């Protein structure tokens, strides 16, 4: 320190130090002030920075939360872009207007240049005119001088000049007005300049605003990027939420399904309970307790149903909420995606805006330049106007000097005035264009203001969205909380459901048995219903078939062949039935044989029984003898007893049982043991009623038998008895009363035989006979049905088959009758063949019908006087017989029992055959006879005709079977078939004997019974 003091040189004076100090202080204060200002500025900057940060944060936050507003901004920007496009158009129009203005200005310049040239020429002309005026003055002076007499004329000229002066003065006024107009033009131009300046300022502001907008756009871009990041996070969270919600929804669905299943189960339970109620009602008397339990179950079931319905309702509500949350999240995600897109579009729109603004700035600059040029041109015009004024002044001066010559100038001035008017118009147009420009600028300002308002609205909407987002978050939290609560409830409900399920399972088990019973009932009812339905259908089908049959009647012509075929089939069936009947008869015979054999067996058994009875009788006798001998010959008794025991014990097929007067068993043999299965030690002492069935015991049969045996000494019985193992056997029994020698009754002996096998055989026969009867009835019914069908069929054939045939025949006959003239011999022959064939077919049908009628008509049996009948038949042939050499011998003919008309047919056929086949003989000899052999009456018709080969004898009685050619002997071969049929129906048979060329003998038999 001291060194420093010493180092201080006092070289500087105090004043200078003070001055320096003052300066330093001043500088310090200035520095302080500067620092304070700086600090203040920094604080201000800090505040602004803080405000900016806050503003940015707000902006960022707003942007984060308000993606929709960005979309609106995009729309607004689009509108702006549209407006800018409009502005561009207008600017383009302005440019065009300016170009036109410039063009006009150029034209004005050209005109002005022309005017200058014109003015120079004028000036030159004026100089020349001055020269000429001077020459004229000289000439005039000479003239005035010369023309003193012509003073009057001069005076007149003066007056004319004075008038010219007045006119010039007026021209001066007009020039002054032109000057004023030009000044106004200048003033207007200045105004235009000011407006142009203002436009420039406005454009600069616009440029400034655009740069501001660009900055904001950049910030928005950044904010949007952040927003995008946040949105992605939100999307992730939303996706997680969606997954969580899906899980929740799935769980809720599962719960819903379980609830539904529970509801279904409960409904089934309810239904089953109702069923149980029904049954319980039926069982009320017996099962009151059951009914009470069922009621309780019903109550529980009802409560369960209600609980389950509530559960289902809650689950469905949960599902709905979950679905709404999912939808909300999806919408959020969708909005976020939309916001991202819009943000991207906004960025692009902002860039475009910036670009447009730059373009506008350029155009504004161009406009400024254009305006400057305009201003310059205006200045030039002013200058030119000023020059014109000077020129005019000079002109005025020249004019005032040269009033006479000025008249010629008037035209030039008028042209000038016209040009000025044109310029005025152009100036006015310029003013209008400038006004339009101002108007457009104002509109731009307004648009800028609207944009600011739109931005403010966006900010407000973003704040609203933030609030909504916050509310949504809170709502989601509440939802999550509610879901958690519901899950808890669902878990509790699940436990309750499980308990319920357990209870339901138990009930279901109980119900299941009932259900099975019900199903069986239902099934049976369904089966009945089906059968009823089938019956109904079958009835309808029957009705339908009946209708169809009517139709078919018309279609029968076509069906005829089928009918013939069916007829054959039916015949076959009838044959089969006959065979079946024969088989039945055979079976019956067999059974009869068996029955007979059984009867024989039975008889043998009876015989054996009788034999045994005899043996028993003999035994009794023996017994009596033994008894008689007891007293006398004890030793003999023992011997006899042993012999008897031996006999008894060895009679295995017979049960021999001794019992006392009360029926208690005292002894029995091995046969009894074999048949009854009881051991002797367990049966001795038992009452013999033990062998009887409960029914017999109840009707006191055992005692009644004993009583009868006692009173009548012995009795027989047959009946079912019971073995030890409960099985039954058919017993044929003889009970014999036992008496001592003195006649005192001391017991019984029962000799029984097991006839179970025989009994079974008998019952089998009985059963077989019963089934046989049933079968016979069935077959009879079938046969009757077949017969009825056959009858209906032949009736149908007789009518429907004949009708078309009749038509063929009838119309062919009419053709032959009426048109034979138009036909040649061959044609006529053909028609005759058709006619004959139709007649032939008619005969065949008739024959068939007759034949079938013989088969189905009921036999009306009466006593038939054969002799009378043959005589009558022969009379019917008397026409044929007349004039022929025929000998008919009718021998003895016994009366028979038979159907008169049918038997008559037999005689007609046989006699007509005999006449027919013997007619070629020189003398026909016919012999008709009959006789009774055993229980049969046999008739014959014998002729001496052509006869036949016996090897064809079996064909004789077949339908349409012929052994002779039609040209030799007419006929269709039905006669003998009819004869055979009729005879068979009467229980007899037909046969024929013959030799070719030696006549034939046809016989038939009719049983007398």
């Amino acid at each position, binding site marked *: 320190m001291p060194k420093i003091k010493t180092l201080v040189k006092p070289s500087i004076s105090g004043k200078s130090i003070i001055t320096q100090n003052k300066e330093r202080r001043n500088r310090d204060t200035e520095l302080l002030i500067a620092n304070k200002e700086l600090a203040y500025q920094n604080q201000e900057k800090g505040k602004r920075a803080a405000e900016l940060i806050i503003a940015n944060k707000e902006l960022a936050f707003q942007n984060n939360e308000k993606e929709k507003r960005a979309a609106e901004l995009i729309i607004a920007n689009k509108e702006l872009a549209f407006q800018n496009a409009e502005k561009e158009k207008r600017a383009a129009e302005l440019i065009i207007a300016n170009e036109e203005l410039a063009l006009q200005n150029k034209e004005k310049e050209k005109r002005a240049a022309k005017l200058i040239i014109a003015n120079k020429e004028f000036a030159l002309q004026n100089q020349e005119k001055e020269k000429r005026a001077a020459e004229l003055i000289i000439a005039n002076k000479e003239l005035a001088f010369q023309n003193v007499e012509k003073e009057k004329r001069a005076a007149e000229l003066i007056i004319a000049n004075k008038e010219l002066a007045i006119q010039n003065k007026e021209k001066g006024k007009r020039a002054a007005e032109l000057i004023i107009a030009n000044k106004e033009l200048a003033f207007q131009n200045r105004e235009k300049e000011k407006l142009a300046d203002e436009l420039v300022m406005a454009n600069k502001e616009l440029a400034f605003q655009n740069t501001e907008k660009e900055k904001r756009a950049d910030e928005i871009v950044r904010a949007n990027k952040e927003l995008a990041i946040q949105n992605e996070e939100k999307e992730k969270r939303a996706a997680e939420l969606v997954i969580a919600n899906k899980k929740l929804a799935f769980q809720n669905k599962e719960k819903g399904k379980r609830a539904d299943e529970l509801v279904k189960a409960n409904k089934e339970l309810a239904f089953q309970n109702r069923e149980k109620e029904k049954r319980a009602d039926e069982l009320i008397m017996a099962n009151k307790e059951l009914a009470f339990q069922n009621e309780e179950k019903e109550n529980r079931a009802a409560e369960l149903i209600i609980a389950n319905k509530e559960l289902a309702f809650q689950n469905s509500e949960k599902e709905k909420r979950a679905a709404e949350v999912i939808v909300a999240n999806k919408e959020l995600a969708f909005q976020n995606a939309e916001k991202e897109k819009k943000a991207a579009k906004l960025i692009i729109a902002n860039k475009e805006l910036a670009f447009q603004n730059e373009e506008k700035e350029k155009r504004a600059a161009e406009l400024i330049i254009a305006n400057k040029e305009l201003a310059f041109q205006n200045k030039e015009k002013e200058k030119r106007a000023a020059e014109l004024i000077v020129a005019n002044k000079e002109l005025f001066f020249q004019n005032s000097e040269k009033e006479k010559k000025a008249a010629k100038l008037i035209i030039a001035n008028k042209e000038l005035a016209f040009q000025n008017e044109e310029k005025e118009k152009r100036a006015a147009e310029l003013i209008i264009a400038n006004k339009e420009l101002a108007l457009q600028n104002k509109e731009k300002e307004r648009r800028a203001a609207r944009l600011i308002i739109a931005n403010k609205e966006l900010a407000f909407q973003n704040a609203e969205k933030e609030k909504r987002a916050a509310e949504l978050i809170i709502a989601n939290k509440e939802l999550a909380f509610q879901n958690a609560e519901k899950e808890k409830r669902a878990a509790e409900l699940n436990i309750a459901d499980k308990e319920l399920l357990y209870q339901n399972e138990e009930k279901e088990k109980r119900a299941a048995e009932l259900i099975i019973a019900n199903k069986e009932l239902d099934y049976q009812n369904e089966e009945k219903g089906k059968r009823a339905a089938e019956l109904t259908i079958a009835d309808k089908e029957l009705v339908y078939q009946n209708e169809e049959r*009517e139709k078919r009647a018309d279609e029968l012509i076509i069906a005829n062949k089928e009918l013939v075929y069916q007829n054959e089939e039916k015949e076959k069936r009838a044959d089969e039935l006959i065979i079946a009947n024969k088989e039945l008869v055979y079976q019956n015979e067999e059974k009869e044989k068996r029955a007979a054999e059984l009867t024989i067996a039975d008889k043998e058994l009876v015989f054996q029984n009788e034999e045994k009875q005899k043996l028993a009788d003999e035994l009794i006798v023996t017994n009596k003898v033994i008894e008689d001998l007891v007293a006398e010959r004890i030793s003999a008794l023992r011997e006899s007893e042993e012999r008897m025991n031996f006999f008894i014990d060895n009679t295995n097929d017979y049960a021999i049982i001794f019992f006392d007067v009360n029926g208690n068993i005292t002894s029995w043999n091995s046969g009894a043991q074999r048949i009854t299965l009881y051991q002797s030690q367990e049966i001795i002492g038992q009452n013999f009623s033990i062998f009887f069935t409960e029914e017999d015991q109840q009707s006191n049969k055992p005692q009644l038998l004993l009583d009868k045996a006692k009173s009548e000494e012995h009795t027989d019985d047959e009946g079912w008895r019971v073995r030890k193992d409960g099985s039954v056997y058919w017993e044929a029994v003889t009970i014999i009363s036992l008496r001592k020698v003195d006649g005192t009754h001391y017991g019984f002996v029962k000799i029984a035989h097991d006839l179970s096998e025989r009994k079974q055989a008998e019952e089998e026969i009985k059963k077989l006979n019963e089934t046989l009867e049933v079968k016979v009835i069935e077959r009879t019914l079938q046969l009757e049905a077949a017969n009825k069908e056959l009858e209906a069929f032949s*009736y149908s054939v*007789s*009518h*429907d088959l*004949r*009708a078309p*045939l*009749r*038509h*063929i*025949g*009838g*119309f062919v*006959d*009419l053709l032959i*009758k009426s048109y034979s003239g138009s036909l040649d011999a061959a044609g006529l022959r053909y028609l005759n063949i058709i*006619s004959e064939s*139709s*007649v032939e*077919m*008619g005969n065949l*049908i*008739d024959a068939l*019908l007759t034949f079938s*009628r013989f088969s189905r*008509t009921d036999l009306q049996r009466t006593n038939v006087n054969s002799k009378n009948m043959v005589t009558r038949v022969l009379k019917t042939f008397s026409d044929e017989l007349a004039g022929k050499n025929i000998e008919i011998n009718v021998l003895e003919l016994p009366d028979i029992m038979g159907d008169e008309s049918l038997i008559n047919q037999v005689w007609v056929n046989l006699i007509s055959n005999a006449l027919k086949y013997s007619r070629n003989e020189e003398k026909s000899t016919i012999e008709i006879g009959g006789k009774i052999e055993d229980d049969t009456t046999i008739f014959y018709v014998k002729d001496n005709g052509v006869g036949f080969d016996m090897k064809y004898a079996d064909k004789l009685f077949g339908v349409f079977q012929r052994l002779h050619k039609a040209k030799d002997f007419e006929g269709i071969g039905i006669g003998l078939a009819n004869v055979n049929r009729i005879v068979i129906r009467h229980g007899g048979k037909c046969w024929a004997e013959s030799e070719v060329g030696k006549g034939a003998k046809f016989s038939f038999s009719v049983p007398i019974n």
Partner: protein
Amino acid sequence: MHTEVKRILIVDDSPKDVELAIAALSEKNLANEVVVAEDGEEALDYLYKRGKFVNENGSPAVILLDIKMPKMNGIEVLKHIRSDPKFKFIPVIMVTSSLEERDLVESYKLGANSYVVKPVDIIQFIDAIKVLGQYWAIINQPPPERM
């Protein structure tokens, strides 16, 4: 007194049979008097002058009645005719496709005058219709002049 035209009423549902019958009748110069009813109901319509015969001025002198017809068969028509005193005495000839005993018995029981089986051969049919000519002769009423 009203004068009714006397007719031969053919009741048959088969137009071919009707034509054959008329052909047969023309042999006996009786064809002009024929009126045809196509089934039992029409036959009754003719008798009672109703339906399509409402303006009919004739009445049947003889009826040729087919048995097998749709709707109302010949036996039923015969029953009607014989049960109405107005028509009770009109001769009725049953004409049928085949000789069916029960039809024959039933027809005579109900008062049919004759029973003719339509033959396949028209000559036979003409013969069969002879019986009709006999009835016609008995009635012997000449047809009144046409209006």
